[in-house]
């Protein structure tokens, strides 16, 4: 047991990697799902244990040296309150969606390729967990590529249901590769200046040796750091689908298999947001990025536009999956606005919203997966009148919709509360207003769905459908229930997120 507890930071990434490989060979027929389920459950247990370890440790940090090489020379995994909580989100969503995906993928993924699907599913987890846990900027890039490459494949697996999944995947490949490439270029520039790849070490060198010399000499250093940071910021914005760079997202989420949409919507962009927070706060430092370069102004404008335009585009959609995808772009805006405000409440809002939105959107995409399983489509007319025929699924969907609006007693309310108070605290009343406008737009697009579900009539001659099978319904209700639970009992989430925010802002807890 000691062997496992001491090596959790390595095992949380190695377990899905090794199991994914084995699934590729031995995972034919039903075995693939069982292996993926076992892996994701083990990962969830390890992530929770890691979170407890971090919060109980005096320094709020757990480090693990790969191959016993000390920090600037080898790859070091560093777990602090921020990435411990993101790890828990990824692991939780991974486990719940895997449970859901067994039945859901039967219809949507070619079954002769199921073992590859489950192998790639686990590689995707490797990438997402690895990005979150690593303390090495280049290792982060490698894991970013692992998660992206597997994501492209998972999206393309939707081609059995809709051929447009292939064009969506290609679109995603091109933009995703540009994003990863920009991030790599950014690291290369910073490496030119600092000669290091370790995030903490780069930060140390930048703040002690590079920034102080700016006013006097070496203007070239200055430009290199700025260019490096700019490349990283644009690359990561592409990965997390921040507003003007979001174009890959709607189609990728719409045409991917339902389970894949649920996994990606609640983890992939969140991990991108985490990586951005890490670059801003731990790598270049907010003094440089915000006070010196005023990146926060750019981010706030992009985030505000994401909220308004994303939500407004969502209103126009006929396909509910695409509606949720555009809504995701808006929700990413909230997360970015939180960390661009750079104060305690704003950052807390960001971290909480990563968790809350993962629960909310994961639950909603899974509810749509149930609809696709029973009804065969996810357009608005397919949802019409389902309130009576699939009451539990639709209740979960509606609860999620309430969360997107930010109705009190749902998780979405908590994050918006912190976001608005953070914006007002920073004197940015305009952006607090934008958050409220976003809520109103969310009300409109949620209402369109709710109206169809509860007040619409099923089409003439449409067969009566039953409630979704239990293995799909239970995980859906679990996430929807959790999104309500964490809206009422906010102690755990706000405490962890507050700790993470304090840790990032440098105040000792």
């Amino acid at each position: 047991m000691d062997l496992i507890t001491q090596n959790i930071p390595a095992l949380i990434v190695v377990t899905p990697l090794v199991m994914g490989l084995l699934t590729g060979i031995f995972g034919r027929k039903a075995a693939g799902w069982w292996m993926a389920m076992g892996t994701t459950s083990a990962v969830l247990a390890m992530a929770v244990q890691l979170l407890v370890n971090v919060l109980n440790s005096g320094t709020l940090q757990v480090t693990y040296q790969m191959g016993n090489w000390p920090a600037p020379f080898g790859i070091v995994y560093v777990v602090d309150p921020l990435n411990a909580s993101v790890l828990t989100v990824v692991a939780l969503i991974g486990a719940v969606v895997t449970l859901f995906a067994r039945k859901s993928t039967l219809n949507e993924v070619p079954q002769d390729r199921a073992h590859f699907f489950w192998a790639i599913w686990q590689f995707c987890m490797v990438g997402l967990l690895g990005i979150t846990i690593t303390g090495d900027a280049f290792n982060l890039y490698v894991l970013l590529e692992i998660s992206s490459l597997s994501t492209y494949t998972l999206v393309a697996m939707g081609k059995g249901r809709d051929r447009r999944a292939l064009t969506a995947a290609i679109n995603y490949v091109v933009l995703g590769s540009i994003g990863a490439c920009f991030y790599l270029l950014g690291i290369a520039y910073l490496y030119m200046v600092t000669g290091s790849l370790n995030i903490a070490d780069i930060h140390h060198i930048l703040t002690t040796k590079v920034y102080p010399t700016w006013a006097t000499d070496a203007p070239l250093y200055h430009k290199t750091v700025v260019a490096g940071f700019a490349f990283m910021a644009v690359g990561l914005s592409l990965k997390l689908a921040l507003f003007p760079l979001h174009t890959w997202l709607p189609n990728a989420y719409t045409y991917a298999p339902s389970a894949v949409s649920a996994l990606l919507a609640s983890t992939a962009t969140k991990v991108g947001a985490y990586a951005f927070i890490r670059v801003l706060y731990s790598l270049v430092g907010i003094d440089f990025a915000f006070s010196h370069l005023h990146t926060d102004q750019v981010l706030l404008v992009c985030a505000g536009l994401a909220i308004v335009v994303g939500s407004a585009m969502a209103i126009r959609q006929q396909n509910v999956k695409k509606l949720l995808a555009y809504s995701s772009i808006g929700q990413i805006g909230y997360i970015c606005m939180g960390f661009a405000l750079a104060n305690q409440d704003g950052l807390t809002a960001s971290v909480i919203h990563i968790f809350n939105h993962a629960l909310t959107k994961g639950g909603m995409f899974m509810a749509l997966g149930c609809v696709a399983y029973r009804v065969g489509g996810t357009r608005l007319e397919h949802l019409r009148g389902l309130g009576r025929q699939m009451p539990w699924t639709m209740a979960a969907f509606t609860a999620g919709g309430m969360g997107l609006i930010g109705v009190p007693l749902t998780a979405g309310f908590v994050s918006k509360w912190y976001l608005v108070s953070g914006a007002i605290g920073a004197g940015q009343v305009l952006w607090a207003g934008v958050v409220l406008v976003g809520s109103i737009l969310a009300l409109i697009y949620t209402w369109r769905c709710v109206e169809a579900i509860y007040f619409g009539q099923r089409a003439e001659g449409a067969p009566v459908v039953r409630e979704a099978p239990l293995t799909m319904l239970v995980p859906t209700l679990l996430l929807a229930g959790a999104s309500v639970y964490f809206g009422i009992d906010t102690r755990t989430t706000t405490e962890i997120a507050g700790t993470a925010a304090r840790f990032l802002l440098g105040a000792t807890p």
Partner: protein
Amino acid sequence: MKDNVLMRVAARWNIPFMVMFALYTQVHGELGPGGGFQAGVIIAAAFILYGMVFGAAEMRRIVPRKVTDIAAVLGVLIYAGTGVYALLNGYQFMDHVALMPSNPGAAEPWGMTSVEYGVGITVSAVMITIFNEITEGTDEPRLGGDTEIVPAPQENKTEIG
């Protein structure tokens, strides 16, 4: 290209040397220039050359898809297994000292060798898989078509020119 004597003979002569050079690159990887990735690519190039000259189907007869699939996985498992072995013996993940605790200086190259073999196996298998994917279902018809479109006199002309 199966009917072209020059290509056939040249390939027959070159392939053994390519494989030999790949192995040379492989065994020099852990402490000098070379390594698993380069060796894997060179060895895959030997097989791909064979496939281009004698037809992809013929190459798949020698290296069936099942072999490349399993080899691709096996290589990464060797890599990860090196790390897990250290972990199971109470060392950090990927700490090669675990392979020979009495002599850490010698353990490091041993660990690297094992990792490099893993990389070599996977890279060669994946390269061959990529070739397989590209040529899938196209080998026989296209080869026939090529010989019709490109008659012998034109080949002579290009050789002289």
